């Protein structure tokens, strides 16, 4: 199940809200070693979890399996206010561009060594579907360069926004990915799953009760 929730919708589901911030702490602080984000309560929360952020969640068996956060580029976001050395010239902004941050797949739901898991591809199918439904067709992502190839394989039109930089042990390159129906179809073919993944909150409150 894939959900797109506003911050206030997420906050009204206390246990789910907690799982989101715990997962983020686990992945980004403990696993990737981004110590700036560390917090003693084990919940990773920052100033971008504001009321216009959209939280994408993949839930499996009542458990949080995957997560990503979409930030509007019409107000401060990571590229413009934190990762400023990742773009050259002017960073692209607009109502049709969101920034995808904190992409995370829970360890139990990862497959293989270097392949993308089914939870991972559900997150991808999810943001493409979500974007196309609301008139967003571009996302900015700061990711490892190896994702560029995967994005191209899924028929995103990719454009680098700057040079790649090294953060800790990781290489990161800011990239804009543009998508359309063809991208969605390619992602669906890849997953061998052709039904929409985006579930609307109202009809799915039961799923959340299970989780809480």
């Amino acid at each position, binding site marked *: 199940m894939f959900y797109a929730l506003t911050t206030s919708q997420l906050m009204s589901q206390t246990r789910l809200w907690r799982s989101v911030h715990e997962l983020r702490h686990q992945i980004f602080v403990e696993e990737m070693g981004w110590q700036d984000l560390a917090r003693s309560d084990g919940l990773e929360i920052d100033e971008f979890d504001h009321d216009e952020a959209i939280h994408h969640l993949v839930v499996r068996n009542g458990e949080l399996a995957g997560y990503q956060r979409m930030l509007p580029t019409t107000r401060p976001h990571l590229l413009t206010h934190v990762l400023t050395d990742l773009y050259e010239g002017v960073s692209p902004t607009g109502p049709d561009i969101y920034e995808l941050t904190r992409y995370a797949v829970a360890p139990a739901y990862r497959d293989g060594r270097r392949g993308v898991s089914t939870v991972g591809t559900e997150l991808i199918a999810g943001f493409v579907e979500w974007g196309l439904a609301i008139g967003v067709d571009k996302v900015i992502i700061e990711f490892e360069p190896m994702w560029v190839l995967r994005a191209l394989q899924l*028929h995103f039109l990719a454009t680098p926004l700057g040079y*790649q930089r090294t953060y800790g042990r990781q290489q990161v390159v800011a990239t804009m990915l543009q998508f359309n129906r063809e991208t969605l179809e390619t992602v669906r073919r890849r997953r061998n799953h052709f039904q929409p993944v985006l579930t609307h909150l109202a009809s799915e409150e039961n799923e959340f009760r299970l989780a809480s």
Partner: protein
Amino acid sequence: MNQFDETLNYIDRIQKAPTTEQVCLELLSVTEKFGLNALLAGTVPDPNTPLAEQKKHVLLCGWPVGWLDRYVQKNYVDRDPVVVRMKKSPGSFKWGEANELSKSDPVSQEVIGDAGCYDLRDGFAFPLYTLDGTPVVVSLGGPAFESSEENLSMIALVSTYAVGRGLQLSQKCRANDKRKALTERETECLRWAAVGKSEWEISQILGISEHTSEKHLLNAKAKLGAANRVHAVAEAIRLGYIS
């Protein structure tokens, strides 16, 4: 134009290249400036892959004429220091490091010597990983090369776009190959449809029932992945079934 805009230009040209040969030429036009005038990108065949199968692993080939044939014919892939080094650990490396690792293997030394005859003396290589985790090796070389870390990461980024475009083009090719071939009757019906004949007219010309001619046309349309009859005719022309 600053260097970043220049990089964007190359990437744009690569993403618009209509064939893998063109992708390769565009990429070489970038790397040549750094003394890298030859390149190969492909998946690594398993050890003991039959020689005839090995070339299918090549995605982009910008090697000197004759070198790929010789490389395959001599079954160098399993002992190529670059491939050996790549299998050991991920990340990019210079050919020199790989050669150092294979110093004690006489066959590897032969590969290096032979490559030298094609003016492939120095270069660098790195793996990329596809969606299902398959590594694609990109190896770039030339008579001599000199480059800063910054340029190397720019070359690696542009190469990633080239391999991505190469994969898109080869996927398209495979999708076309998977299409079932048209039968003689289906082709015949399309040929008449192309000159404006109706199903009834086609049935009279071919001496079959109207229902049968309709069925042939529907099958042809499905096999060609066409949205309607006009599209089916266009696809059949493009694929050379009718002219």
